[in-house]
C-alpha cells in the first residue's frame, strides 16, 4: 500500500471494469522471458519510523556546517537563508506542480519565474535571463554552445584558467564530440587571467572568450580584457559568476562588454545540500535571446485584457524543435529558482549591498590577518578579492586541515579537490567567508595558522 489509495476491493472493482482477470493480464505484452513475478531483492517496506531511524543515522555521519566554523566555498557559498523560504517552499502548490505548461493554472509559478529572470537580468546588467539552468558548470557549457550558434562557422573557444576547473572539465565533456578546440589561458602572478595571452589566443576562428570574476582563486579580474579580446574578432565574450553577491559591489558583466553571463546563483539562500540541487543562470543581451537555451517566461494578456504570464519563444525548445533546439534541457531547477527569488525579494537592494559589504569586510580582515602571520602562510595572489582568496601553504595543506578540524573548523577547500590528478596548485587552500562567519571564527582560523 504505502502511497496507493485504492483498497484491495477497489482494485478488484477496477479490474472488473477493465475486464481483466488479474493484474498479470495487464502485462500480457511483456515478453515472458523478462517478466518477473518474484519481488525485487530489496528490504521489506519501511515505515516512517524506520526510515527516520535509518537515514537519521546516515545523516549523522556527516559534518553539517551548523556544527562547524566553515571556510568552504570554491563555487558554493553558504549565505543566510531567510527562515520563511524553506517553509513556503513546502506549500504543495509550489512543491508538487509541474512545469507551467498551462498558464491559466500556473500563474503562481510563472510570476515567480518572471521575477527570477528580472533579478538575474538586474544583477548581471543583461537584457534577458532564462528560467534557470541545472547549475553553474552546465550553464557555462550552454553559454559556450550558444556563443557558437551566434557566430557562424567558428571553431575555437578561449577559456581562462581562472574559471572553476570543474566548469572547464564539464566543457571538455560536452564538447568532446564537436569539432571545436578549447584553448586555455593561464593566470598571472596577480591571479588574474593574463590579458596579453588572452588577446593573443583569440583570433578570427574564435567564437567565444570566457573568464570568471571573482575567479576560482577569488581574484576579482573584471570583464574588460575578455570583452576586448572577443570583440576584436567579433567573437562572444562570456562572463562566469558563481558568487552572485559580488555583483552587489562590483561592475556587472553587462556593463563591461560581456555578451553572455552565466554561472551559479545558489548564494541566494540555497542550502548547500552536498552540491545539489543548486540553480544555474544564463543571461544575455537582446541580440542573443533567440539562441538562449531553456525556458523563458513572458508577460501576456487575455481576451478580457487581464494580464498574466506564460512560457514564450518555445520554438527554441526541444519539444518543438527536437534536434534543432537550442538545448536539450527540459526539467530545470524551478523550485530553487523560486527559493533564490524569495531570498532576493526580501534582501532587496539594501540587503544585497549590506551582505556584500559584510562578506568583503570579513575577507579583508582575514587576509590582513594572514599577511600579518609570521609562519609559512601567505596570500597566494596580489589581485583584489571579494569573499574568498587562495592561501599559499608552506606546509602540507592536509596538515592545515587536520589541525583546524581539531578545533571544529573547516579551514577551506584544497585546490587539489577541484582538479584531482593534476599537479597544479597543490599548495593552495581556497578560503571563503560569508556574512554568517563570525569574527570569532576568523580569529580561530588565524590562531590555527599561527600554530605552525
Amino acid at each position, binding site marked *: 500500500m504505502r502511497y496507493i489509495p485504492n483498497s484491495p476491493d477497489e482494485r478488484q472493482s477496477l479490474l472488473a471494469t477493465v475486464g481483466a482477470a488479474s493484474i498479470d493480464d495487464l502485462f500480457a505484452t511483456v515478453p515472458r522471458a523478462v517478466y518477473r513475478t518474484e519481488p525485487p531483492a530489496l528490504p521489506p517496506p519501511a515505515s516512517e519510523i524506520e526510515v527516520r531511524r535509518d537515514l537519521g543515522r546516515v545523516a549523522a555521519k556527516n559534518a553539517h556546517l551548523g556544527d562547524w566554523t566553515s571556510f568552504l566555498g570554491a*563555487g*558554493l557559498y553558504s549565505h543566510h537563508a531567510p527562515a520563511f523560504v524553506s517553509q513556503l517552499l513546502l506549500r504543495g502548490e509550489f512543491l508538487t506542480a509541474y512545469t507551467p505548461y498551462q498558464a491559466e493554472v500556473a500563474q503562481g509559478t510563472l510570476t515567480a519565474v518572471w521575477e527570477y529572470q528580472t533579478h538575474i537580468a538586474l544583477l548581471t546588467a543583461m537584457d534577458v535571463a532564462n528560467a534557470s539552468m541545472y547549475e553553474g558548470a552546465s550553464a557555462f557549457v550552454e553559454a559556450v554552445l550558444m556563443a557558437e550558434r551566434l557566430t557562424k562557422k567558428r571553431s575555437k573557444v578561449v577559456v581562462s584558467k581562472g574559471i572553476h576547473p570543474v566548469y572547464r572539465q564539464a566543457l571538455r565533456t560536452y564538447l568532446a564530440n564537436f569539432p571545436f578546440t578549447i584553448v586555455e589561458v593561464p593566470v598571472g602572478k596577480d591571479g588574474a587571467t593574463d590579458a596579453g595571452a588572452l588577446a593573443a589566443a583569440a583570433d578570427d576562428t574564435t567564437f567565444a572568450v570566457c573568464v570568471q570574476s571573482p575567479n576560482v582563486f577569488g581574484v576579482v579580474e573584471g570583464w574588460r580584457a575578455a570583452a576586448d579580446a572577443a570583440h576584436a574578432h567579433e567573437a562572444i565574450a562570456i562572463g562566469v559568476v558563481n558568487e552572485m553577491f559580488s555583483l552587489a559591489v562590483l561592475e556587472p558583466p553587462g556593463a563591461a562588454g560581456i555578451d553572455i553571463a552565466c554561472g551559479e546563483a545558489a548564494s541566494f539562500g540555497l542550502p548547500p545540500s552536498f552540491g545539489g540541487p543548486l540553480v544555474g543562470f544564463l543571461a544575455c543581451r537582446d541580440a542573443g535571446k533567440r539562441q538562449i537555451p531553456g525556458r523563458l517566461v513572458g508577460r501576456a494578456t487575455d481576451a478580457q485584457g487581464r494580464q498574466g504570464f506564460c512560457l514564450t519563444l518555445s520554438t527554441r525548445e526541444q519539444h518543438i524543435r527536437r534536434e534543432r533546439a537550442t538545448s536539450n534541457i527540459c526539467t530545470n531547477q524551478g523550485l530553487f529558482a523560486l527559493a533564490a527569488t524569495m531570498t532576493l525579494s526580501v534582501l532587496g537592494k539594501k540587503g544585497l549591498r549590506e551582505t556584500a559589504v559584510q562578506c568583503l569586510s570579513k575577507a579583508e580582515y582575514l587576509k590582513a590577518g594572514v599577511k600579518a602571520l609570521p609562519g609559512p602562510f601567505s596570500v597566494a595572489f596580489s589581485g583584489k578579492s571579494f569573499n574568498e582568496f587562495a592561501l599559499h601553504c608552506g606546509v602540507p595543506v592536509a596538515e592545515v586541515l587536520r589541525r583546524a578540524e581539531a578545533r571544529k573548523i573547516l579551514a577551506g577547500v584544497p585546490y587539489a579537490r577541484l582538479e584531482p590528478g593534476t599537479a597544479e596548485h597543490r599548495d593552495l587552500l581556497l578560503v571563503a567567508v560569508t556574512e554568517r562567519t563570525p569574527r570569532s571564527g576568523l580569529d580561530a582560523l588565524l590562531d590555527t595558522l599561527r600554530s605552525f
Partner: protein
Amino acid sequence: MSDHGTLTSPEPLVRADSRLDRRRRFGSLFDAPRAGRVGVLLPPLDVPEADPAALYGRDHRPAVEGELEASEVDVVRHFTRLSLLNFAIDTALYPLGSCTMKHNPRINEEIARLPGFNDTHPYAPEHLSQGNLELMFRLEEALKVLTGFARVTLQPSAGANGELAGTLMIRAAHAKAGDARKHVLVPDSAHGTNPASAHFAGYSVVELGSSRRGTVDLSELEAKMTGDVAALMITVPNTLGVFEDQILDVAKIVHAKGGYLYMDGANFNAFVGKVRPADMGVDVMHMNLHKTFSTPHGGGGPGAGPVGVGASLVPFLPVPTVERAGEGFRLDYDRPDSIGKMRAFYGNFGVLVRALTYILSYGNSIPEVAENAVLNANYLRKRLDPFYDLKYDAPSYHEIVFSDHRQAAKGVHNIDIAKRLMDFGFHPPTMSFPLIVPGALMIEPTESEGKDELDAFADAMIAIAKECEESPGIVTSAPHTTPVGRLDDAATAREASKHGNFAPVLRAPVK
C-alpha cells in the same frame, strides 16, 4: 459542504469580484514599488568595514538599480498569494501524461531537510562526508537491483542530462573501439529531448517510423540499423503507453550491427520492479527520479537523471563514482576512460535523498507501484473509450493517448478540452506530443489516485465530451474560472522576439 461526486447543477451565477479580493490579487512585486521598505536584518558587522568604492575603484558598483525594496510581510504574502494560483498534485489529480505526477510523500522532504544532508558542503573532507557517500552508494545499489545494470551514475541533473550522459558514453565506447559512428535512431513517437540529446552528443538523428500498433517498425529498423548507427533510443513503454512487445528482437537487431540500445526510462513507472531493463537487452538507460521515484517537480525542477549501464560502458561513467573503502566509502576520480563531468559536484544530491527514502518506503513491494499505475490507466481508458478516440488501440500501460478526432468535427480541439478541464479543477493532459497523434490528449493518472478521484476525472472528461456535442461554445471559450483566461502567447512571442523589445515582456524594466 458541496456534495461529492456528482456534476449536476452548476452554482448560480455570482460576481466573482476577484479584483476586489486581496487574496486573489496578484502580479509581480516589481509592479508595486515600495521605496524605502526593508526586509532583512543582518548581524552588526563585527570587523572593520571595508569600503568597496575605495578598494575596487572604477570596478565598483554602488547599487543594483531596479532591485526590490520590500518588507518580510510583503514578501511572505506575495508568495503565499501566488501559490494560490497554481494547480498541484496536493490539490487534485494531475494527469499530465509522461510526467508521472504521483503523490510526493512528505517524509521525503523531511529526510532531505535533515541538517546532516541539507547543510553539508560537497568539498568537506571525505571522512566528514561518509553519510552522504553511503546514501549515494545505497541508492546506486537499489537502482542496480531494479534495473539489472552493472553500475548507475547519479550525476546527471535531470532526464535530458541523463540522455546526454548516456549518449556520450556510447560515443566514447565506439571511439575507444576505433569505430566512430554518425547516427542515432529515434522513433517518431519519442520525446523531444531524445533527438536533442543525440544532437548535442554530436550525432545526426535518423527518425524511425512507428508501426500501426504504435511500436517500432522492425522492418524499417532492420533497414536503417547500419554500421554507422551508434544507437537506437527507445522509450518503453513508448509515449503512447504501449509496451514494445518485440523489444528482444529490437535489441538483437541493434546489437547485431554493433549498436547500443538506449532506453529512455521516463516511463519506468509502468514496470518498475516487474521488468529489469537490462534483461531486455538495454545497454544504457536514464531514470527520472522526479517521476518514477516521487521526488517533487517543484513547478519545473529540480530533477535527477541517473543513468544505468551494462558492463561494457562502465569504464566511461562520469567521475567521480562512489566506491567502498574499508568500512566506509570514497570518491573515485581515477577513471581514465571516463567521459568526465556532466556538472559541478556529484549530482542533485537532495533529490537522491528523497528517491532513496521513497525506495526504502516501498522496498520489495515496489512492483505494486507499476501494477496500480497500469491498472488506473486502463480503468480510465475503459471509462473514456466510448467518448474519445484512441488512434492506437494496442494494450495500454501507465498512460493512454486519446485524440480530439471526434470532437474536432464539432470544432473543439484538444486545447479546448484541456482548458475546460480547468473549470472542473483538473490540470489538463499532455498535448505537445507524441507528434504521431494529432490533437493528442495524453493521460497518466499514476498509481497514487484512488477510484473516487479517477471517477471524478472521468466524469469531468465525459461531461466535457457531452458539452462538445451540446454546447461546444462553453468548451472553446474555456477556462471560465481561472484568474486569467487564455493568454495571447502568440502576441507575447512576437513582442519578445522583436529586436530590442525585451522589457517589460521578458523582465521588469528598471524604473
